[in-house]
């Protein structure tokens, strides 16, 4: 099986506190996953689960404490960002923060073209920009000479995607691309990812906490919790029949736009995040409704349950079979 990007045993630790009272937080704890060509892969979880840290390491903004990233058969080399980012482009959460408000939007496009030497003349550059903008439903005319304040959030997010497409990337890393976009315009962005996958064969690493859009657009999904991937598989497996108690909680907490399916019962929230990061054994043990003694002491094994990877003691029997 061809793998576009492979992440192996990735770990990132941050140190908190002063010299005397150091606390090590493992933001990403030994995770492995891969992305196939022309696939939308979701990395989902709550804030502080390590999904953005993972993305930053893949993009080269941070260095991993341990583990490797293999892209197109090559390992990541230090100080060699250009070859790396030509195949991988990123779009970010806040469309208003992506662009400098005092700078014309088109200048970002010309800058990218210059950095990667994608065109020889201005005409060629404009033709390329126009072609990419048309993919997202805009034209160069719409953009020329305008400032970010003249666009809506949804439009700016589509402009970021067009900018990312300039280098013909194989993989787009989208860090919460719709969370700041209005609900009524969200689907236009999400549908765009589908179109890029189906028509251009672009893969997307879709980082999100919105499981409903993840279900709608993605092929496979990994659920992260406090630095661990607790469950991974196709969206059908993971979201329609969740195995891990955390995935079940997450799935049950999504407000569904259906008045016949209102929330039932009460849930327990964690008081502070650091407690859970420093917990021994399974980090979900403090809130898990099905907690057992073994969960508090031993790290759960990674087992395959009905085709999905699950990291939970409840399914320990599957490890032997």
């Amino acid at each position, binding site marked *: 099986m061809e793998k576009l990007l492979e992440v192996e045993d990735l770990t990132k630790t941050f140190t908190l506190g002063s010299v005397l009272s150091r606390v090590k937080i493992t933001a990403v704890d030994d995770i492995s996953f891969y992305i196939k060509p022309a696939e939308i892969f979701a990395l989902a979880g*709550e*804030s502080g689960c390590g999904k953005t840290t993972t993305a930053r390491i893949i993009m080269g903004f941070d260095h991993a404490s341990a583990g490797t990233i293999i892209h197109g058969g090559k390992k990541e080399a230090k100080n060699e960002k250009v070859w790396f980012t030509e195949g991988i482009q990123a779009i970010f959460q806040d469309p208003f923060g992506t662009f400098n408000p005092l700078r014309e939007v088109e200048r970002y496009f010309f800058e990218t073209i210059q950095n990667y030497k994608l065109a020889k003349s201005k005409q060629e550059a404009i033709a390329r920009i126009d072609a990419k903008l048309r993919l997202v439903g805009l034209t160069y005319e719409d953009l020329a000479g305008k400032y970010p304040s003249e666009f*809506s*959030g*949804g*439009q700016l997010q589509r402009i970021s995607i067009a900018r990312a497409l300039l280098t013909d990337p194989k993989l787009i890393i989208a860090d919460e691309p719709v969370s700041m976009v*209005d*609900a*009524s*315009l*969200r*689907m*236009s962005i*999400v*549908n765009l990812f589908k179109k890029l996958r189906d028509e251009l064969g672009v893969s997307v690493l879709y980082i999100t*906490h*919105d*499981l*409903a*859009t993840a*279900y*709608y657009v993605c092929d496979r999904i990994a659920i992260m919790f406090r630095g661990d991937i607790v469950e991974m598989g196709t969206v059908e497996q993971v*979201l*329609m029949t969740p195995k891990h108690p955390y995935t079940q*909680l*997450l*799935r049950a*907490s*999504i*407000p*569904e*736009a*259906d*008045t016949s399916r*209102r*929330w039932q019962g*009460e*849930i327990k*929230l*964690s*008081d*502070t*995040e650091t407690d859970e990061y420093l917990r021994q054994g399974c980090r979900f043990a403090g809130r898990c409704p099905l907690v057992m003694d073994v969960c508090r002491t031993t790290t759960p094994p990674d087992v395959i349950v009905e085709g999905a990877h699950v990291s939970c003691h409840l399914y320990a029997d599957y490890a032997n079979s």
Partner: protein
Amino acid sequence: MEEIILKTEGLKAFYVLDVYGKQKTVKAVNDVDLAIRENEIYGIAGESGCGKTTLLKTLAAAMEPPLRIVDGRVCYHIAGADVDVSTLSQEEIRRLRLEYIAYVPQGSMSVLNPVARIKDTYRDFIESHISTQQRDEAFLLAKEHIVELGLPPKILDAYPHQLSGGMRQRVTIALATLLKPRIIIGDEPTTALDVVVQRGVVQLLKDVQRKLQNTIILVTHDMGVHANIADRIGIMYAGKIVEEGSTDKIFGDPEHPYTQYLINSLPKFGDKTPRESVPGSPPSLANLPPGCPFHPRCPHVKEICKQEMPGFTQVESNHKVACWLVGEGEHGKAA
């Protein structure tokens, strides 16, 4: 039917700006009639920039120039009588806040003083509304209240940055409900939160409402939250309420094309059929299109839509729509 606790009549609140000598009017709230009942959760939904927050500001009587009420009025129902908010003095409005109407904002970090412990913030709140309170008494009152809402009392000694986002938002709700207000206004209280935490916060809001039997006006663009908590929903578009009905009606049988788009664009589990966003972009409130403001984006646009704003048609006793497509020819102005 329960009594109406807050109503607006033909409310128009505009931002009147003076930009380089040119006058510019942003019509953020444009002819809104609301009648919000006692003991209900009323949801207001709409895109960003449709005037939701401005509407809340006028409801809470927290207007500051350049925002001003151009026409219409906001009435509170206090002690059996309707009181026009614009006739009240600043001091009277200050007294009404927290005791009659309370406000839960979106960003809980900017509400709590970062260099004061939670209990000091509580004391400020209590001292500004209940005189002759001793320090210890105020602390006891705060503690009682916190425990009643099911939050751990140790958070009173914490600074805001020591609490998680969800806990901060719950502390803000606790502060807002301290004096048992009749109306709680929530401006996107769960928007910046994770799904699990959001559920916890919504749970708390529901509990508070059940205990106090009061009214919550909840603004959020997350239709899922509305489906879960609201009794009635008003859909706002470009400064106007375009459809209002019970939650079941709005989700089960929406009549306005905009509402239909909003409901149908929501992804559902177990259903991967393609979903479409509302086409186009929201209009600028400073430069509204003539007629129905939705007509440039509406797939069913007719000639009359471009010229005249439709009034409300009462589809059912609890469901009204402002659209020319519904009940043609029966439109009265603002029914």
